[in-house]
């Protein structure tokens, strides 16, 4: 991966750090050592690429969106297809990588938090493949809106624990995972799902996800003949964004755009835009320092997004840093814009982006029309939308779907 993404004493300028209870200090020392050793061993990255090439279908392709490009009449639109990963999202990259690390560390159990359920499914999948025991913490709210993923996690042999504390979403699942970890760190590794949390997680997750950017840079130059003018990625914790951006960080002419969850609008308080709204401020929680959606006392606010995977109070300290340096521009897309973008992508290209990924599309669609046809943009389709069928069906008020569910329920009652 590009060495530009290395923390100095766990920090990216003022962001990051490792604010962890004393009981976990040794675990983090071990993790830092294991990660460093692995990273310095070229064989490790090779084995990672090899695993992703045989178990998932890396390199994932870049698809030229001919119809969308024509539709908007502006920039040529290219899409990085992380949705084609095994388990349907970029989450697989990070999880499989950490799986290899867990094997090296000789631990036998993994735990993880999950929002959309994508990271939970990916972790449960990795655990099944590597033969690890697995417990997934998932906010009760998310368990409800992402049931299909819960169903598969259980089939995969994972124990799914609904978290009933706090706002019962991603951040609370993370807290619960930490509580499990401080009790079981000896045989357990916490597979954090995004580029957040205490050092070395932001850097480590970015390291594994950087496979996206490495492939994408090579591919786009090959296909489009030049670097893209802008690169778009949705930003929950920041892992798919960092993964793709990392491939273009040193290409100053490429503008990097991170799209946060605008929810019901960044002027309301029902969103998850930590940087793209006026409501975010620097704080320290869940073990690291970054922008959070919090009140003056430092209590975390509830967040909202139609996309469970973006519904999170914090953001990668690396992205907070890149925001300060001005390297990454942050925007927000509202739930409504996102659903419209998703419908358009499905209809025009036959692709079904996850609601999370649709945020990147929504913003790109605002900007592309105003760019010359000679310019090009790259959008990260971080995952596929199949998992969102319940949410999307509701958002579109599909009557047949409603009928179908009612019939199903009656059949079950009978």
């Amino acid at each position, binding site marked *: 991966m590009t060495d530009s993404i290395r923390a100095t004493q766990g920090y990216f300028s003022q962001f990051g750090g*490792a604010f962890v209870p004393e009981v976990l*200090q*040794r675990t983090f020392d071990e993790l830092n050592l294991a990660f460093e050793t692995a990273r310095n061993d070229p064989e490790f990255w090779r084995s990672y690429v090899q695993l992703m090439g045989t178990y998932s279908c890396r390199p994932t392709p870049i698809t030229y969106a001919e119809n969308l490009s024509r539709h908007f009449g502006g920039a040529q639109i290219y899409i990085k297809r992380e949705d084609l990963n095994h388990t349907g999202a970029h989450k697989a990259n990070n999880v499989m990588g950490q799986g290899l690390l867990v094997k090296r560390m000789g631990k036998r159990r993994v735990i993880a938090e999950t929002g959309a359920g994508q990271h939970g499914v990916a972790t449960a999948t990795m655990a099944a493949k590597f033969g690890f025991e697995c417990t997934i913490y998932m906010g009760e709210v998310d368990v409800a809106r992402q049931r299909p993923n819960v169903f598969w996690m259980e089939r995969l042999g994972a124990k799914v624990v609904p978290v009933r504390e706090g706002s019962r979403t991603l951040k609370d699942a993370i807290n619960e995972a*930490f509580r499990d970890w401080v009790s079981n760190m000896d045989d357990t590794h916490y597979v954090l799902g995004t580029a957040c949390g205490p050092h070395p997680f932001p850097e480590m997750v970015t390291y594994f996800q950087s496979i996206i950017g490495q492939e994408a840079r090579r591919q786009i130059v090959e296909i489009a003949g030049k670097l893209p003018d802008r690169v778009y990625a949705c930003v929950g914790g920041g892992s798919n964004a960092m993964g793709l951006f990392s491939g273009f960080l040193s290409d100053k002419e490429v503008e990097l755009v991170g799209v946060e969850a605008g929810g019901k609008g960044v002027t309301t308080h029902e969103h998850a835009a930590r940087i793209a709204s006026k409501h975010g401020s620097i704080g320290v929680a869940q073990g690291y320092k970054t922008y959070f959606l919090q009140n003056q*006392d430092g209590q975390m606010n509830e967040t909202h997004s139609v996309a469970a995977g973006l519904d999170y109070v914090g953001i990668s300290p690396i992205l907070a840093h890149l925001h300060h340096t001005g390297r990454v521009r942050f925007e927000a897309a509202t739930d409504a814009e996102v659903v419209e973008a998703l419908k358009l992508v499905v209809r025009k290209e036959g692709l079904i982006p996850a609601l999370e990924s649709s945020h990147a599309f929504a913003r790109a669609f605002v900007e592309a029309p105003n760019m010359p046809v000679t310019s090009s943009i790259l959008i990260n389709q971080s995952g596929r939308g199949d998992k969102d069928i319940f949410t999307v069906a509701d958002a579109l008020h599909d009557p047949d779907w409603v009928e179908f569910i009612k019939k199903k329920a009656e059949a079950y009652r009978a």
Partner: protein
Amino acid sequence: MLETIIRAKLAERAPLLMTHIVIGYPDFDTSLALIDAMVESGVDLIELQIPFSEPIADGPVILHANQVALEKGSTVDRCFEFAEHVSRKYAVPFLFMTYYNILFRQGVRSFVERARKAGLKGMIVPDLPPEEASEYEAAMAEVGLDPVYIFAPTTSPERMQKLAAHAKGFVYCVARKGVTGSSTDFSDELSSYLARARAATKLPLAVGFGVKRKQDVDFLQAHAEIAVVGSETLRVLEQEGIARVGPFLRGLRA
């Protein structure tokens, strides 16, 4: 100066008893009543926890207390008022216990300043290791408050040395892995860990996490200066009522 106070009290009895409340849980009146009961029961030190929405080091009982307190409007300002009120009213030394973001948002320097004005003697910040604490330590030293640090069973002797070098007042030894509120077996393993702790610092040792019964306190007598009772007090309050808290605390050293 916390250490001096502790040494003085130790001349009278050992081990000392440190108790804990979450300010504003289940409400401010009860919090006050709890303090009264604790003082009447001869408690030697009291932790006042300012609630935080993400208390990762706390278990179900205190986690719940944090949330209820916040819902009940336990803002940082009201916590300061409360702390000032009780520390004026009682001679027993009070400490703040909270997570770093609460200090950070107020501005570490001004938070510490306010704490001193409110009459507190020290602070415990479980998610703030010395590596991240330079600003905090400077401010604490400047205003003369003691930063209490934590030892864990997983802490190496070398690291204990390092922590001890940063700690003032006493060292808080968490009796086991895990979060607050689950039970601990007071075993040889614990004694040898406390022996390591003892070897690493001259400061008094406080032992918390899972202290529930008189036997636990008795066990600790030989290994530490302070027994810390946290979640169990809340359990008694919730299950048996405020009236039983005093008797429960007195029973621990009867």
